[in-house]
């Protein structure tokens, strides 16, 4: 299975699609194809239905979070310093925008080959987290895409039932993102018990404010 050949085959048959081959430097040698969200469904259908490929088994789907980062670069610039032109070293900071990536591992049950690794990236990590759903193409995407939505916050357009899978429905954040911070309290519905305790604590502190004792080092 030559990924380069598959890439050119797809490009010849799915008009307008933009594919990029992402090399994997690890000894596993599982290189991948980066799809553009616009033509992703067409490419997926082509991979599934073409007789010599027949990737009918979508084994694994998962998300990866790549937060945006600032890269500082030292570059030499010629500049006028005190009226004399000199070569000065300057630090330039470039911001690489973050994205959420979804990775698919496809196999073929019919041809017994694979895996082929596909990936898609969202525009950013805030408003542009939309990607097309593969659930209409492979049913196995149903629960796995729900999980990615739940833990990473990718919105899959065309998914029939995009709800949280593992966290509860009222939960706000996306726990698998790199910048996720644990909430102070996991109780999603504060019980009366907690409210009573808090009132009692407030009452106590007003009635008997805690004073630092004199000998104590602060």
């Amino acid at each position, binding site marked *: 299975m030559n990924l380069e050949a598959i890439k050119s085959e797809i490009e010849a048959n799915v008009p307008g699609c933009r594919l990029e081959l992402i090399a994997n430097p690890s000894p596993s040698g599982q290189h991948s194809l980066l799809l553009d969200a616009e033509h992703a469904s067409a490419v997926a259908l082509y991979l599934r239905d073409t007789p010599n490929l027949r990737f009918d088994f979508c084994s694994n789907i998962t998300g990866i979070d790549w937060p945006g980062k600032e890269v500082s670069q030292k570059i030499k610039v010629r500049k006028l310093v005190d009226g004399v032109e000199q070569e000065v070293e300057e630090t330039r900071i470039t911001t690489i925008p973050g994205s959420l990536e979804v990775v698919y591992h496809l196999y073929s049950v019919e041809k017994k080959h694979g895996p082929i690794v596909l990936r898609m990236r969202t525009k950013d990590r805030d408003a542009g987290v939309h990607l097309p759903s593969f659930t209409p193409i492979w049913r196995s995407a149903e*629960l796995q895409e729900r*999980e990615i939505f739940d833990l990473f916050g990718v919105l899959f357009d065309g998914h029939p039932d995009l709800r949280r899978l*593992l966290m509860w429905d009222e939960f706000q954040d996306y726990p698998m993102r790199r910048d996720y911070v644990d909430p102070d309290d996991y109780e999603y519905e504060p019980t009366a018990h907690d409210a009573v305790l808090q009132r009692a604590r407030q009452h106590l502190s007003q009635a008997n404010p805690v004073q630092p004792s004199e000998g104590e080092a602060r």
Partner: protein
Amino acid sequence: MSTATLAAASLNLEPANESGMDQLLEIAMGPQHPSTHGVFRMNVVLDGERVVRLKPVFGYLHRNHEKIAENETYLGSMPYTDRLDYMCPLTNNWAYALAVEKLAGIQVPERAEYLRVITGELTRLQNHTCLIGFLMQDMGASGTPLMYAFRQREIILDLFEALTGARMMCNYMRFGGCRVDLPAGWLDQAKKVVAGFPRFLDEYESLLVSNEILMDRTQDVGVLSKELAISAGISGPMARASGVDYDIRKVDHYSIYDRFAFRVPLGSHGDVYDRFMIRLLEMRESVNILQQAMRDIPEGPIVDPKTKIRGFRPKPGEAYGRIEGPKGELGFYLVSDGSPNPYRYRVRPPSLINLTILEDLCLGRNVADIVVILGSIDIVMGEVDR
């Protein structure tokens, strides 16, 4: 207004006619239900006794295993993998070790491969016996079949304990090999256990296979078509019961499975009875593999000496490694950024993905059939919820 109508009104389910005879009833099966094999809930909408809708609810055992593993070293996650599918810790270890070996390009010594195959196939034996025991329990054959299965499982767990020090939380595999070598006399004991296993299978089969009640409860119940099984990513015995000829031991040629002669049993109906039979037949094949492996196991080192234990940092890159676990395709996907912790660590849980089609199998069936269908899918909540 009767109580039933009141209940329906509170659920916003309209009774279909005034008499209230055709109304739908929504019930929550689980999370504390003896048939759900852990904390798992199904929101079932019933028309009389017939299932109209079924929505599984996950997450009661969610602890974000993947996030924990990302904050842990590569080797530090090995004991955690035992806790995924706690019925088969050794195959979980194996899948994880395999993924890391792919990521870092580690070679496994001959003897270690044999140890992996032996422990892996023993795991398959004890998983399948217990599954059948639980399935019978779910069907109302209270006690006896399960106890027979547990008796057999105990013997295998004793072997695990002698080898790894733990009955269930084995933590046995290492990157590039296994943790400890076989203790003295272990192989003879294991040979005895495996030699006695076909007799147990004969006994079990004669009790169950042509049992009229079992056939009545399982045949043509929960039929899964071949097309849906492939599309929904169903793997393992569940897919093979539907006639999908796909065994990763044969397809991927991982480890040393090429050296053993064994067959892949396939079902033709895809119903619960086929799923039950496939597991029985697979156990016979596992016994075959075990006998060959225990005959051929060579002497030698059990771990790759070049692999570092401390300061293990694979080069940046990614790898997906998978094995044929007892429940299906168990895969691990790892992304390394060159640090001691994985940047991304993902478990491909066969139990969860095999549940994708639960609603399709249960629609139109009775409540009692849900229990049987769920039992035949073979789930462990530690893996479903991770």
